[in-house]
């Protein structure tokens, strides 16, 4: 037998270690993904435990985008809400991480508190908290908002001066402001890890050059943190759009067993939704790339 070169041998070893993951990728990700795209191009009927396929091309998408208003009615408010929420989450997690990175007694105690929402925000508890605080709740019992944000004159100002759809989004956000802050738990962890990775020698050099704390923050800490902010942004987008109480999920499930539309139509919703999320993520990457380029140019 021909002896393998070291290079090939190493590659085979690498592939061996990765093989489990690749098998899982094909079976649990790629296969359903392609299958689902094929479904979205068909009209599918369930007959006696079997699927009956009928190829209709992009008709599902056409109906979804141009004929039915259901998709837009759910997507637009949801998108607007996320558009406001995600920057708040990122800003808040940056502030939290910056403070938790300072050296002071009791730091570990605060870290315990600020990582706590990671446990709360991923489950069903958050849903019951949200439902308990909406509808019947009065300002006195609502703890998900801050007293400052409940100011009546501000609310009437918003209601009078904005488009009703935007106004509803804004008041919704004000009502559940604390929950939005809660969603920043994982991001704070990521950014804190990022802060630790900036070498202390850079700070020492800045100090010798006579930079004060404020200048150090803008010239060293934040630029060094930029890749982590990108990761936190991507995580926030993914997290926000795959939330279990997400209105889009309900729509897909509802359409799945609905006779006239069926699984093909539901798959098309899933794909259109994925498409939008990809566009958002793409935009984030473009913005950050610009920031990176500027940093290098300066």
């Amino acid at each position, binding site marked *: 037998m021909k002896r393998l070169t070291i290079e090939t041998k190493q590659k085979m070893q*690498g592939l061996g270690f990765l093989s*489990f993951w690749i098998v899982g990728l094909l079976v649990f990700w790629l296969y359903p993904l392609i299958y689902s795209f094929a479904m979205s191009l068909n009209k599918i009927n369930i007959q006696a435990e079997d699927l009956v396929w009928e190829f209709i091309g992009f008709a599902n998408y056409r109906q979804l985008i141009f004929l039915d208003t259901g998709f837009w009615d759910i997507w637009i408010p949801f998108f607007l809400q996320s558009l406001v929420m995600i920057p708040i989450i990122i800003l808040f997690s940056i502030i939290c991480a910056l403070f938790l990175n300072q050296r002071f007694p009791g730091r570990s105690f605060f870290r315990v508190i600020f990582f706590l929402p990671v*446990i709360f925000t*991923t489950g*069903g508890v958050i849903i019951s908290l949200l439902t308990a605080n909406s509808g019947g709740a*009065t300002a006195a019992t609502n703890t998900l908002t801050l007293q400052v944000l409940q100011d009546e004159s501000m609310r009437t100002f918003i209601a009078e001066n904005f488009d009703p759809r935007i106004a509803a989004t804004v008041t919704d956000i004000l009502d559940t402001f604390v929950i939005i802050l809660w969603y920043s738990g994982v991001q704070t962890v990521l950014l804190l890890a990022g802060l630790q990775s900036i070498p202390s020698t850079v700070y020492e050099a800045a100090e010798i050059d006579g930079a004060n704390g404020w200048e150090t923050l803008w010239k060293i800490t934040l630029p060094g943190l930029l890749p982590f902010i990108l990761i936190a942004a*991507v995580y926030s987008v993914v997290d926000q759009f795959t939330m279990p109480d997400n209105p889009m999920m309900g729509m*897909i499930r509802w359409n799945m067993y609905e006779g006239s539309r069926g*699984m093909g139509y539901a798959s098309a919703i899933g794909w259109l939704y994925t498409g939008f*999320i990809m566009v958002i993520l793409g935009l984030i990457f473009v913005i950050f790339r610009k920031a990176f380029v500027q940093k290098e140019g300066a």
Partner: protein
Amino acid sequence: MLQKIQHNLEYFMHHRRALRLRTKALLLGTNKEKQGLLKYVVIYFILISLALIYIAPVVSMVSTSLKTFSDLIDPTAKWIPKNWNPVNYKYAFNALRMVVTFHDDFTLWENLRRSSLFNTLSIVLPSALFQVLSCAVAGYAFGRLKIPWKNFWFVLLILTFVVPPQAMMIPLIWTYRTYGLLDTPFAFIVPAFFGHGVKGALFVFIYMQFFKKLPKELEEAALIDGIGPIKMFWKVMLPLARPSIIVVFLFSIVFHWNENLLTQYFYLGAQTLPQALTGLQPEGNPTELFIVPVKMAAGIIELAPLLILYFFMQRWFTESIERTGLVE
């Protein structure tokens, strides 16, 4: 007396400059090692206010869970209930169906599956254990080994994280049905075994970042000792990865325990804890049963095991985050 004050005043006027400097040093700090009081005051003020905002809903959850109806509508009893009503917990506990009395007509498996606690545990424990190991293997390959088309696989890794499960939910349910995975914990355990499953890509990523950082000399020394690739991973690399293992294990348990999206599709015949919580329908004496306090009590019961685990592991956890660096 008067003389003494005068003396002090003179002393003060004389040493004004020295005092001012000392006060300034105390407030603003002199150098990196000895930081000023003012900085601490600012840090504590901001962090304590943020912590209060953060904790307020949890505190209100606890207090609401102990309220009677009259306290519920009484704004003066917002934080501390006037009449403590622990019976809410009894109702919540029963409604969550964590413990189920055994029926002779059913098989053991059918009996166990009527318990939401069993359903959740049977997903959480095996999946978390498998993910800790399988994601470490994949992360090691990504972080340290030579793989053909590495960038291609890496892009796919990112995509598995980014593409929402909504896009492929339907065929996934359909194929799971034909494999007979539906309605069993294996719907979660099998993907976890292959290094995927709930947030699997994130865990592979965490491991990858960790293994990447280890010094090259480590491998060279081990190679000189004539160690094989599997032994290298098992005996050298994995024991070093303890901080990552802790982070991944805790995250995996939390994410699986709270999993409420996939279970909606995969668990139709049985209920997990979060499902039981969302569809909570407590039964009992209508004069003392009110849904909101019972729901809050149920939420606390559901999260209690995670909170206990977190408080026991938090020391390791916060330290691990610093040491893993998580991402780069």
